Protein backbone atom coordinates (compact mmCIF):
# COMPACT_ATOMS: atom_id res chain seq x y z
CA UNK A 1 0.00 0.00 0.00
CA UNK A 2 1.51 3.27 -1.06
CA UNK A 3 0.23 6.56 0.23
CA UNK A 4 1.33 10.13 0.78
CA UNK A 5 0.11 12.34 3.60
CA UNK A 6 0.05 16.12 3.67
CA UNK A 7 -0.36 18.13 6.83
CA UNK A 8 -2.33 21.33 6.84
CA UNK A 9 -0.29 24.41 5.99
CA UNK A 10 -1.05 28.06 6.55
CA UNK A 11 -1.99 30.13 3.56
CA UNK A 12 1.03 31.86 2.09
CA UNK A 13 1.32 34.14 -0.93
CA UNK A 14 -0.90 33.07 -3.78
CA UNK A 15 -1.87 35.21 -6.77
CA UNK A 16 -4.69 34.03 -9.01
CA UNK A 17 -4.68 35.77 -12.38
CA UNK A 18 -6.89 35.68 -15.46
CA UNK A 19 -5.57 37.10 -18.73
CA UNK A 20 -8.29 37.41 -21.37
CA UNK A 21 -8.57 38.88 -24.84
CA UNK A 22 -8.70 37.98 -28.51
CA UNK A 23 -6.87 34.97 -29.88
CA UNK A 24 -3.70 36.16 -31.60
CA UNK A 25 -3.05 38.95 -29.09
CA UNK A 26 -0.46 36.85 -27.31
CA UNK A 27 -2.61 36.15 -24.26
CA UNK A 28 -1.36 32.59 -23.84
CA UNK A 29 2.30 33.38 -24.43
CA UNK A 30 2.16 36.33 -22.04
CA UNK A 31 0.80 33.99 -19.38
CA UNK A 32 3.51 31.47 -20.17
CA UNK A 33 6.30 34.03 -19.82
CA UNK A 34 4.86 35.19 -16.49
CA UNK A 35 4.57 31.59 -15.26
CA UNK A 36 8.11 30.78 -16.39
CA UNK A 37 9.52 33.83 -14.61
CA UNK A 38 7.77 32.79 -11.41
CA UNK A 39 9.03 29.23 -11.82
CA UNK A 40 12.59 30.53 -12.02
CA UNK A 41 12.00 32.30 -8.70
CA UNK A 42 11.18 28.96 -7.12
CA UNK A 43 7.42 29.46 -7.05
CA UNK A 44 4.73 26.93 -7.76
CA UNK A 45 2.91 27.83 -10.97
CA UNK A 46 0.01 26.66 -13.09
CA UNK A 47 -1.03 27.83 -16.54
CA UNK A 48 -4.42 26.72 -17.76
CA UNK A 49 -5.57 27.92 -21.19
CA UNK A 50 -9.02 27.98 -22.67
CA UNK A 51 -8.47 25.49 -25.46
CA UNK A 52 -11.78 25.61 -27.28
CA UNK A 53 -12.10 26.22 -30.99
CA UNK A 54 -11.07 29.82 -30.33
CA UNK A 55 -8.39 30.81 -32.79
CA UNK A 56 -7.19 34.17 -34.07
CA UNK A 57 -10.07 36.63 -33.73
CA UNK A 58 -12.05 34.59 -31.18
CA UNK A 59 -11.71 34.99 -27.43
CA UNK A 60 -8.84 33.34 -25.59
CA UNK A 61 -7.96 33.31 -21.92
CA UNK A 62 -5.49 31.76 -19.56
CA UNK A 63 -5.52 31.30 -15.81
CA UNK A 64 -2.09 31.71 -14.23
CA UNK A 65 -1.59 30.90 -10.57
CA UNK A 66 1.64 31.76 -8.75
CA UNK A 67 2.08 30.51 -5.21
CA UNK A 68 4.50 29.66 -2.43
CA UNK A 69 2.64 26.41 -1.89
CA UNK A 70 1.15 23.51 -3.82
CA UNK A 71 -1.49 24.86 -6.19
CA UNK A 72 -4.98 23.45 -5.83
CA UNK A 73 -7.48 24.09 -8.60
CA UNK A 74 -5.95 25.32 -11.88
CA UNK A 75 -9.43 26.49 -12.93
CA UNK A 76 -11.10 29.24 -10.92
CA UNK A 77 -14.08 31.55 -10.97
CA UNK A 78 -12.66 34.33 -8.75
CA UNK A 79 -9.37 36.11 -9.36
CA UNK A 80 -7.00 38.44 -7.52
CA UNK A 81 -6.00 40.08 -10.77
CA UNK A 82 -7.68 40.30 -14.17
CA UNK A 83 -5.88 41.48 -17.30
CA UNK A 84 -8.58 42.32 -19.82
CA UNK A 85 -7.85 43.02 -23.47
CA UNK A 86 -11.28 43.19 -25.12
CA UNK A 87 -14.88 44.08 -24.36
CA UNK A 88 -16.30 40.52 -24.29
CA UNK A 89 -13.65 39.57 -21.72
CA UNK A 90 -14.41 42.64 -19.62
CA UNK A 91 -18.12 41.79 -19.68
CA UNK A 92 -17.31 38.27 -18.56
CA UNK A 93 -14.58 38.80 -15.98
CA UNK A 94 -15.10 42.20 -14.31
CA UNK A 95 -17.48 40.69 -11.76
CA UNK A 96 -15.03 37.82 -11.08
CA UNK A 97 -12.32 40.00 -9.52
CA UNK A 98 -12.18 39.55 -5.74
CA UNK A 99 -12.99 42.69 -3.71
CA UNK A 100 -9.74 44.56 -3.19
CA UNK A 101 -8.30 42.91 -6.30
CA UNK A 102 -6.82 44.43 -9.42
CA UNK A 103 -8.19 44.89 -12.94
CA UNK A 104 -5.95 46.04 -15.77
CA UNK A 105 -7.51 46.80 -19.14
CA UNK A 106 -6.37 47.95 -22.52
CA UNK A 107 -8.60 50.82 -23.63
CA UNK A 108 -8.49 49.82 -27.30
CA UNK A 109 -11.92 48.55 -28.29
CA UNK A 110 -13.36 49.00 -24.79
CA UNK A 111 -16.65 50.90 -25.17
CA UNK A 112 -17.81 50.50 -21.58
CA UNK A 113 -14.93 50.88 -19.12
CA UNK A 114 -14.96 48.94 -15.82
CA UNK A 115 -17.43 50.20 -13.21
CA UNK A 116 -16.25 48.43 -10.04
CA UNK A 117 -15.25 50.77 -7.18
CA UNK A 118 -14.09 48.05 -4.76
CA UNK A 119 -11.09 47.04 -6.85
CA UNK A 120 -8.02 48.85 -8.16
CA UNK A 121 -8.56 49.59 -11.85
CA UNK A 122 -5.62 50.36 -14.13
CA UNK A 123 -5.69 51.37 -17.75
CA UNK A 124 -2.91 50.62 -20.17
CA UNK A 125 -3.05 51.88 -23.74
CA UNK A 126 -0.95 49.00 -24.94
CA UNK A 127 -2.34 48.81 -28.47
CA UNK A 128 -1.69 52.52 -29.08
CA UNK A 129 1.76 52.25 -27.51
CA UNK A 130 2.66 49.25 -29.65
CA UNK A 131 1.69 51.16 -32.78
CA UNK A 132 3.72 54.19 -31.64
CA UNK A 133 6.72 51.93 -31.06
CA UNK A 134 6.25 50.37 -34.53
CA UNK A 135 6.19 47.07 -32.66
CA UNK A 136 2.65 45.68 -32.92
CA UNK A 137 3.82 42.24 -31.79
CA UNK A 138 5.18 43.84 -28.62
CA UNK A 139 1.59 44.41 -27.49
CA UNK A 140 1.49 41.57 -24.99
CA UNK A 141 4.88 42.50 -23.51
CA UNK A 142 3.67 46.07 -22.95
CA UNK A 143 0.69 44.64 -21.06
CA UNK A 144 2.96 42.29 -19.10
CA UNK A 145 5.19 45.25 -18.19
CA UNK A 146 2.15 47.08 -16.86
CA UNK A 147 1.05 44.03 -14.91
CA UNK A 148 4.37 43.47 -13.12
CA UNK A 149 4.60 47.22 -12.42
CA UNK A 150 1.33 47.24 -10.43
CA UNK A 151 1.54 43.62 -9.22
CA UNK A 152 5.27 43.01 -8.65
CA UNK A 153 4.93 39.25 -8.73
CA UNK A 154 8.25 38.59 -10.45
CA UNK A 155 11.50 40.46 -11.07
CA UNK A 156 11.80 42.19 -14.45
CA UNK A 157 15.14 40.45 -15.12
CA UNK A 158 13.45 37.09 -14.70
CA UNK A 159 10.78 38.02 -17.23
CA UNK A 160 13.55 38.69 -19.72
CA UNK A 161 15.21 35.39 -18.83
CA UNK A 162 11.84 33.69 -19.26
CA UNK A 163 11.55 35.24 -22.71
CA UNK A 164 14.86 33.68 -23.66
CA UNK A 165 13.63 30.33 -22.34
CA UNK A 166 10.28 30.36 -24.08
CA UNK A 167 11.21 31.97 -27.42
CA UNK A 168 12.69 29.62 -30.00
CA UNK A 169 16.36 30.42 -30.61
CA UNK A 170 15.65 31.74 -34.10
CA UNK A 171 13.60 34.57 -32.55
CA UNK A 172 16.19 35.61 -29.95
CA UNK A 173 17.04 38.69 -32.03
CA UNK A 174 13.62 39.98 -31.00
CA UNK A 175 14.42 39.96 -27.27
CA UNK A 176 15.69 43.59 -27.09
CA UNK A 177 12.46 44.79 -28.76
CA UNK A 178 10.41 42.81 -26.29
CA UNK A 179 12.45 44.14 -23.37
CA UNK A 180 11.83 47.67 -24.58
CA UNK A 181 8.10 46.95 -24.83
CA UNK A 182 8.11 45.50 -21.31
CA UNK A 183 9.77 48.60 -19.87
CA UNK A 184 7.50 50.92 -21.85
CA UNK A 185 4.48 49.10 -20.41
CA UNK A 186 5.70 49.93 -16.91
CA UNK A 187 5.67 53.62 -17.84
CA UNK A 188 2.32 53.88 -19.59
CA UNK A 189 0.08 52.04 -17.12
CA UNK A 190 -2.01 54.34 -14.96
CA UNK A 191 -4.48 54.08 -12.11
CA UNK A 192 -8.10 55.01 -12.87
CA UNK A 193 -10.09 56.66 -10.10
Amino acid at each position, binding site marked *: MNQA*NHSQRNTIMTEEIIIAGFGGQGVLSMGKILAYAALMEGKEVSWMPSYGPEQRGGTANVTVIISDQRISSPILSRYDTAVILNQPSLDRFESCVKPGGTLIYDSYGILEPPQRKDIAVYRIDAMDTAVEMHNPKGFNMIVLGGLIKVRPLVETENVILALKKTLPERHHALIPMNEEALRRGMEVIRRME
Partner: protein
Amino acid sequence: MEKEDILLMKGNEAIAHAAIRCGCDGYFGYPITPQSEVLETLTLEKPWETTGMVVLQAESELASINMVYGAGAAGKRAMTSSSSPGVALMQEGITYMAGAELPGLIVNVQRGGPGLGTIQPSQSDYMQATRGGGNGDYNVIVLAPASVQEMADFVDLAFELSFKYRNPAMILSDGIIGQMMEKVVLPPFKPRRTEEEITRECPWAAMGKPKNRRPNIHTSLDLDSARMEETNRHLQAKYQEIKNKEVRYEKVMCDDAEHLIVAFGSAARIALKTIELCRNQGIKVGLLRPITLWPFPTEEIARLSKQVSSILSLEINAGQMIEDIRLAVEGRVPVNHYGRMGGMVPTPEEVAEALKQTVIK
Protein backbone atom coordinates in the same frame (compact mmCIF):
# COMPACT_ATOMS: atom_id res chain seq x y z
CA MET B 1 18.71 19.78 -7.80
CA GLU B 2 19.65 22.30 -10.45
CA LYS B 3 16.89 24.75 -11.28
CA GLU B 4 17.63 23.99 -14.91
CA ASP B 5 16.05 20.60 -14.39
CA ILE B 6 12.69 22.14 -13.55
CA LEU B 7 10.66 22.66 -16.70
CA LEU B 8 7.31 24.22 -17.51
CA MET B 9 5.22 22.12 -19.84
CA LYS B 10 1.78 20.74 -20.61
CA GLY B 11 0.66 17.40 -19.24
CA ASN B 12 0.50 16.01 -22.76
CA GLU B 13 4.07 17.13 -23.45
CA ALA B 14 5.21 15.55 -20.18
CA ILE B 15 3.73 12.20 -21.29
CA ALA B 16 5.76 12.34 -24.51
CA HIS B 17 9.04 13.31 -22.83
CA ALA B 18 8.56 10.70 -20.12
CA ALA B 19 7.92 7.99 -22.73
CA ILE B 20 11.22 8.73 -24.45
CA ARG B 21 13.06 8.78 -21.12
CA CYS B 22 11.64 5.57 -19.69
CA GLY B 23 12.80 3.36 -22.53
CA CYS B 24 9.56 3.22 -24.48
CA ASP B 25 10.08 1.23 -27.69
CA GLY B 26 7.12 2.48 -29.69
CA TYR B 27 4.30 5.00 -29.79
CA PHE B 28 1.37 4.48 -32.14
CA GLY B 29 -1.35 7.09 -32.19
CA TYR B 30 -3.89 9.08 -34.06
CA PRO B 31 -4.52 12.80 -33.37
CA ILE B 32 -7.51 13.98 -31.37
CA THR B 33 -8.08 17.03 -29.17
CA PRO B 34 -7.27 17.46 -26.31
CA GLN B 35 -4.31 15.04 -26.46
CA SER B 36 -2.70 15.86 -29.80
CA GLU B 37 0.41 17.36 -28.15
CA VAL B 38 1.57 13.84 -27.23
CA LEU B 39 2.16 12.87 -30.86
CA GLU B 40 3.21 16.42 -31.77
CA THR B 41 5.89 16.49 -29.06
CA LEU B 42 7.19 13.04 -30.00
CA THR B 43 7.41 14.12 -33.64
CA LEU B 44 9.36 17.24 -32.67
CA GLU B 45 11.69 15.32 -30.35
CA LYS B 46 12.50 12.69 -33.02
CA PRO B 47 13.38 9.91 -30.54
CA TRP B 48 13.94 7.49 -33.44
CA GLU B 49 17.21 9.37 -33.97
CA THR B 50 18.30 9.07 -30.32
CA THR B 51 16.86 6.12 -28.40
CA GLY B 52 15.56 4.30 -31.46
CA MET B 53 11.97 4.59 -30.24
CA VAL B 54 9.45 4.20 -33.06
CA VAL B 55 6.85 6.96 -33.43
CA LEU B 56 4.07 6.33 -35.90
CA GLN B 57 0.87 8.11 -36.77
CA ALA B 58 -1.38 5.18 -37.50
CA GLU B 59 -4.33 5.27 -39.89
CA SER B 60 -6.82 4.99 -37.04
CA GLU B 61 -7.22 4.26 -33.35
CA LEU B 62 -7.98 0.63 -34.21
CA ALA B 63 -4.67 0.34 -36.00
CA SER B 64 -2.88 2.08 -33.10
CA ILE B 65 -4.08 -0.30 -30.41
CA ASN B 66 -3.36 -3.35 -32.55
CA MET B 67 0.16 -2.08 -33.16
CA VAL B 68 0.51 -1.83 -29.38
CA TYR B 69 -0.78 -5.43 -29.15
CA GLY B 70 1.79 -6.60 -31.67
CA ALA B 71 4.69 -4.77 -30.06
CA GLY B 72 3.59 -5.96 -26.60
CA ALA B 73 3.56 -9.56 -27.88
CA ALA B 74 7.23 -9.09 -28.75
CA GLY B 75 7.98 -7.87 -25.22
CA LYS B 76 8.34 -4.24 -26.27
CA ARG B 77 7.28 -1.24 -24.22
CA ALA B 78 4.62 0.16 -26.53
CA MET B 79 1.97 2.79 -25.97
CA THR B 80 -0.80 4.78 -27.54
CA SER B 81 -2.72 7.86 -26.50
CA SER B 82 -6.07 9.24 -27.47
CA SER B 83 -9.15 10.98 -26.11
CA SER B 84 -12.51 9.51 -25.19
CA PRO B 85 -14.08 8.71 -28.60
CA GLY B 86 -10.75 7.31 -29.79
CA VAL B 87 -10.35 5.17 -26.67
CA ALA B 88 -13.88 3.85 -27.21
CA LEU B 89 -12.69 2.60 -30.59
CA MET B 90 -9.70 0.89 -28.97
CA GLN B 91 -11.73 -1.25 -26.56
CA GLU B 92 -11.63 -4.33 -28.78
CA GLY B 93 -7.84 -4.24 -28.89
CA ILE B 94 -7.62 -3.67 -25.15
CA THR B 95 -9.76 -6.69 -24.25
CA TYR B 96 -7.72 -8.81 -26.69
CA MET B 97 -4.56 -7.64 -24.91
CA ALA B 98 -6.08 -8.52 -21.53
CA GLY B 99 -7.14 -11.93 -22.86
CA ALA B 100 -3.73 -12.65 -24.36
CA GLU B 101 -2.00 -11.22 -21.25
CA LEU B 102 -0.03 -8.60 -23.13
CA PRO B 103 1.50 -5.47 -21.64
CA GLY B 104 0.98 -2.01 -23.10
CA LEU B 105 0.06 1.51 -22.10
CA ILE B 106 -3.04 3.41 -23.16
CA VAL B 107 -3.32 7.12 -22.28
CA ASN B 108 -6.82 8.59 -22.28
CA VAL B 109 -6.94 12.40 -22.09
CA GLN B 110 -10.70 12.51 -21.57
CA ARG B 111 -13.17 14.88 -23.15
CA GLY B 112 -16.92 15.18 -22.69
CA GLY B 113 -19.31 12.68 -24.27
CA PRO B 114 -21.32 10.75 -25.16
CA GLY B 115 -20.43 10.25 -28.80
CA LEU B 116 -18.11 12.82 -30.29
CA GLY B 117 -19.33 15.12 -27.51
CA THR B 118 -17.05 18.06 -26.91
CA ILE B 119 -13.34 18.75 -26.79
CA GLN B 120 -13.60 20.18 -23.27
CA PRO B 121 -12.47 18.18 -20.20
CA SER B 122 -14.49 15.44 -18.56
CA GLN B 123 -14.08 12.35 -16.38
CA SER B 124 -16.97 10.48 -17.93
CA ASP B 125 -14.90 7.47 -19.02
CA TYR B 126 -14.44 6.29 -15.41
CA MET B 127 -16.74 3.30 -15.82
CA GLN B 128 -15.27 2.35 -19.19
CA ALA B 129 -11.74 2.45 -17.74
CA THR B 130 -12.39 0.69 -14.44
CA ARG B 131 -14.76 -2.04 -15.68
CA GLY B 132 -12.50 -3.21 -18.44
CA GLY B 133 -14.36 -1.35 -21.17
CA GLY B 134 -14.52 -4.16 -23.71
CA ASN B 135 -16.09 -7.61 -23.61
CA GLY B 136 -15.30 -10.32 -21.11
CA ASP B 137 -14.23 -10.49 -17.46
CA TYR B 138 -11.11 -8.40 -17.28
CA ASN B 139 -9.61 -5.29 -15.73
CA VAL B 140 -7.08 -2.73 -16.82
CA ILE B 141 -4.72 -1.14 -14.28
CA VAL B 142 -5.83 2.50 -14.19
CA LEU B 143 -3.68 5.38 -12.91
CA ALA B 144 -5.20 8.85 -12.50
CA PRO B 145 -2.63 11.68 -12.54
CA ALA B 146 -3.62 14.94 -10.83
CA SER B 147 -0.66 17.04 -11.98
CA VAL B 148 1.76 17.45 -14.85
CA GLN B 149 4.42 15.86 -12.63
CA GLU B 150 2.29 12.75 -12.22
CA MET B 151 1.70 12.66 -15.99
CA ALA B 152 5.47 12.33 -16.31
CA ASP B 153 5.91 9.93 -13.39
CA PHE B 154 3.08 7.56 -14.24
CA VAL B 155 4.37 6.61 -17.70
CA ASP B 156 7.20 4.51 -16.27
CA LEU B 157 5.03 3.29 -13.39
CA ALA B 158 2.33 2.17 -15.83
CA PHE B 159 4.87 0.27 -17.94
CA GLU B 160 6.37 -1.37 -14.85
CA LEU B 161 2.97 -2.55 -13.61
CA SER B 162 1.91 -3.54 -17.08
CA PHE B 163 4.94 -5.82 -17.54
CA LYS B 164 4.90 -7.08 -13.95
CA TYR B 165 1.36 -8.39 -14.39
CA ARG B 166 1.31 -8.84 -18.18
CA ASN B 167 -1.81 -6.71 -18.38
CA PRO B 168 -2.68 -3.48 -20.19
CA ALA B 169 -2.34 -0.33 -18.08
CA MET B 170 -4.08 2.98 -18.60
CA ILE B 171 -3.33 6.54 -17.62
CA LEU B 172 -6.76 8.16 -17.24
CA SER B 173 -6.24 11.90 -17.55
CA ASP B 174 -8.41 14.65 -18.96
CA GLY B 175 -8.31 17.91 -20.91
CA ILE B 176 -7.37 19.89 -17.80
CA ILE B 177 -4.28 17.91 -16.84
CA GLY B 178 -3.37 17.40 -20.51
CA GLN B 179 -3.59 21.06 -21.49
CA MET B 180 -2.30 22.83 -18.41
CA MET B 181 1.30 23.74 -17.84
CA GLU B 182 3.00 23.20 -14.51
CA LYS B 183 6.45 22.63 -13.12
CA VAL B 184 7.82 19.24 -13.92
CA VAL B 185 11.04 17.37 -13.30
CA LEU B 186 11.36 14.72 -15.98
CA PRO B 187 12.40 11.20 -14.98
CA PRO B 188 16.05 10.21 -15.53
CA PHE B 189 16.95 8.53 -18.81
CA LYS B 190 16.58 4.78 -18.85
CA PRO B 191 17.81 2.95 -21.94
CA ARG B 192 15.47 0.79 -24.01
CA ARG B 193 15.84 -2.87 -23.22
CA THR B 194 18.08 -4.86 -25.52
CA GLU B 195 16.79 -7.98 -27.29
CA GLU B 196 18.80 -10.09 -24.81
CA GLU B 197 17.20 -8.33 -21.86
CA ILE B 198 13.74 -8.87 -23.30
CA THR B 199 14.48 -12.57 -23.89
CA ARG B 200 15.65 -12.88 -20.28
CA GLU B 201 12.93 -10.78 -18.61
CA CYS B 202 10.02 -11.78 -20.85
CA PRO B 203 10.42 -15.48 -21.69
CA TRP B 204 6.86 -15.35 -23.05
CA ALA B 205 7.75 -12.76 -25.70
CA ALA B 206 7.39 -13.71 -29.37
CA MET B 207 10.96 -12.96 -30.41
CA GLY B 208 11.55 -15.72 -32.94
CA LYS B 209 11.51 -19.36 -31.81
CA PRO B 210 14.81 -21.02 -30.93
CA LYS B 211 14.98 -24.78 -31.53
CA ASN B 212 15.04 -25.62 -27.81
CA ARG B 213 11.61 -24.34 -26.81
CA ARG B 214 7.98 -24.46 -27.92
CA PRO B 215 6.59 -21.46 -29.77
CA ASN B 216 5.25 -18.50 -27.76
CA ILE B 217 1.72 -18.05 -29.04
CA HIS B 218 -0.35 -15.02 -28.06
CA THR B 219 -4.08 -15.25 -28.53
CA SER B 220 -7.24 -14.57 -26.59
CA LEU B 221 -9.12 -17.29 -28.50
CA ASP B 222 -9.70 -20.74 -27.03
CA LEU B 223 -12.65 -22.79 -28.27
CA ASP B 224 -12.25 -25.35 -25.47
CA SER B 225 -14.53 -23.93 -22.76
CA ALA B 226 -12.96 -25.87 -19.91
CA ARG B 227 -9.55 -24.46 -20.83
CA MET B 228 -11.07 -21.02 -21.34
CA GLU B 229 -12.53 -21.15 -17.84
CA GLU B 230 -9.10 -22.08 -16.49
CA THR B 231 -7.68 -19.04 -18.31
CA ASN B 232 -10.36 -16.90 -16.69
CA ARG B 233 -9.58 -18.34 -13.24
CA HIS B 234 -5.93 -17.51 -13.78
CA LEU B 235 -6.83 -13.95 -14.85
CA GLN B 236 -9.11 -13.47 -11.83
CA ALA B 237 -6.36 -14.68 -9.47
CA LYS B 238 -4.01 -12.17 -11.10
CA TYR B 239 -6.54 -9.35 -10.71
CA GLN B 240 -6.95 -10.27 -7.04
CA GLU B 241 -3.17 -10.08 -6.57
CA ILE B 242 -3.17 -6.64 -8.18
CA LYS B 243 -6.00 -5.55 -5.84
CA ASN B 244 -3.99 -6.80 -2.86
CA LYS B 245 -0.71 -5.18 -3.81
CA GLU B 246 -1.17 -2.16 -6.05
CA VAL B 247 -3.75 0.16 -4.47
CA ARG B 248 -2.44 3.71 -4.40
CA TYR B 249 -4.03 6.84 -3.00
CA GLU B 250 -3.27 10.18 -1.38
CA LYS B 251 -4.91 11.64 1.71
CA VAL B 252 -5.02 15.37 2.40
CA MET B 253 -6.18 16.78 5.75
CA CYS B 254 -8.03 13.61 6.69
CA ASP B 255 -6.76 13.38 10.28
CA ASP B 256 -9.40 15.71 11.77
CA ALA B 257 -11.90 15.53 8.89
CA GLU B 258 -15.60 15.37 9.70
CA HIS B 259 -16.51 15.27 6.02
CA LEU B 260 -14.70 13.64 3.16
CA ILE B 261 -14.42 14.44 -0.52
CA VAL B 262 -13.34 11.58 -2.76
CA ALA B 263 -12.03 12.86 -6.08
CA PHE B 264 -9.42 11.80 -8.65
CA GLY B 265 -7.32 13.61 -11.23
CA SER B 266 -8.31 17.18 -12.04
CA ALA B 267 -11.39 16.98 -9.79
CA ALA B 268 -9.04 16.34 -6.85
CA ARG B 269 -7.34 19.65 -7.61
CA ILE B 270 -10.69 21.43 -7.52
CA ALA B 271 -11.45 19.58 -4.28
CA LEU B 272 -8.28 20.94 -2.66
CA LYS B 273 -9.52 24.49 -3.27
CA THR B 274 -12.97 23.56 -1.98
CA ILE B 275 -11.39 22.20 1.19
CA GLU B 276 -9.54 25.49 1.66
CA LEU B 277 -12.82 27.44 1.27
CA CYS B 278 -14.69 25.11 3.66
CA ARG B 279 -11.99 25.08 6.31
CA ASN B 280 -11.92 28.90 6.28
CA GLN B 281 -15.57 28.62 7.33
CA GLY B 282 -14.87 26.06 10.03
CA ILE B 283 -16.07 22.97 8.13
CA LYS B 284 -13.49 20.22 8.54
CA VAL B 285 -13.20 18.54 5.17
CA GLY B 286 -10.53 16.11 3.98
CA LEU B 287 -9.66 14.59 0.62
CA LEU B 288 -9.12 10.98 -0.36
CA ARG B 289 -7.65 10.92 -3.85
CA PRO B 290 -7.55 7.52 -5.51
CA ILE B 291 -4.35 7.34 -7.58
CA THR B 292 -5.24 3.88 -8.84
CA LEU B 293 -8.88 3.86 -9.96
CA TRP B 294 -8.56 0.14 -10.53
CA PRO B 295 -7.64 -1.30 -8.14
CA PHE B 296 -9.81 1.06 -6.09
CA PRO B 297 -8.88 2.10 -2.51
CA THR B 298 -11.95 0.37 -1.11
CA GLU B 299 -10.45 -0.50 2.27
CA GLU B 300 -9.21 3.00 3.03
CA ILE B 301 -12.56 4.55 2.10
CA ALA B 302 -14.31 1.97 4.30
CA ARG B 303 -12.00 2.93 7.17
CA LEU B 304 -12.59 6.68 6.68
CA SER B 305 -16.36 6.13 6.48
CA LYS B 306 -16.21 5.17 10.17
CA GLN B 307 -14.63 8.56 10.99
CA VAL B 308 -16.56 11.10 8.89
CA SER B 309 -20.26 11.93 8.87
CA SER B 310 -20.65 12.42 5.12
CA ILE B 311 -18.84 11.71 1.87
CA LEU B 312 -19.02 13.72 -1.35
CA SER B 313 -17.94 12.11 -4.59
CA LEU B 314 -16.67 14.95 -6.76
CA GLU B 315 -16.39 13.85 -10.38
CA ILE B 316 -16.56 15.71 -13.67
CA ASN B 317 -19.35 13.42 -14.84
CA ALA B 318 -22.89 12.36 -13.89
CA GLY B 319 -21.73 10.16 -11.01
CA GLN B 320 -19.71 7.04 -11.78
CA MET B 321 -17.06 6.58 -9.08
CA ILE B 322 -19.84 7.12 -6.50
CA GLU B 323 -20.83 3.49 -7.10
CA ASP B 324 -17.40 2.26 -6.00
CA ILE B 325 -17.50 4.57 -2.97
CA ARG B 326 -20.93 3.29 -1.95
CA LEU B 327 -19.72 -0.30 -2.28
CA ALA B 328 -16.87 0.59 0.08
CA VAL B 329 -19.04 2.53 2.55
CA GLU B 330 -21.78 -0.11 2.76
CA GLY B 331 -24.38 2.42 3.89
CA ARG B 332 -22.52 3.63 6.99
CA VAL B 333 -22.75 7.32 6.03
CA PRO B 334 -24.53 9.27 3.27
CA VAL B 335 -22.57 9.39 0.00
CA ASN B 336 -23.54 12.19 -2.37
CA HIS B 337 -22.28 13.17 -5.77
CA TYR B 338 -21.48 16.51 -7.29
CA GLY B 339 -20.35 16.94 -10.87
CA ARG B 340 -20.75 18.77 -14.14
CA MET B 341 -21.04 17.26 -17.59
CA GLY B 342 -20.50 17.90 -21.27
CA GLY B 343 -17.17 19.68 -20.83
CA MET B 344 -18.29 22.01 -18.03
CA VAL B 345 -15.97 22.04 -15.03
CA PRO B 346 -17.22 22.58 -11.47
CA THR B 347 -15.86 25.62 -9.65
CA PRO B 348 -14.50 25.21 -6.11
CA GLU B 349 -17.24 27.56 -4.90
CA GLU B 350 -20.10 25.49 -6.29
CA VAL B 351 -18.58 22.32 -4.86
CA ALA B 352 -18.33 24.03 -1.46
CA GLU B 353 -22.03 24.94 -1.74
CA ALA B 354 -22.94 21.36 -2.65
CA LEU B 355 -20.91 20.08 0.27
CA LYS B 356 -22.60 22.49 2.70
CA GLN B 357 -26.00 21.27 1.48
CA THR B 358 -25.08 17.71 2.35
CA VAL B 359 -23.62 18.76 5.71
CA ILE B 360 -26.89 20.49 6.65
CA LYS B 361 -28.86 17.39 5.65
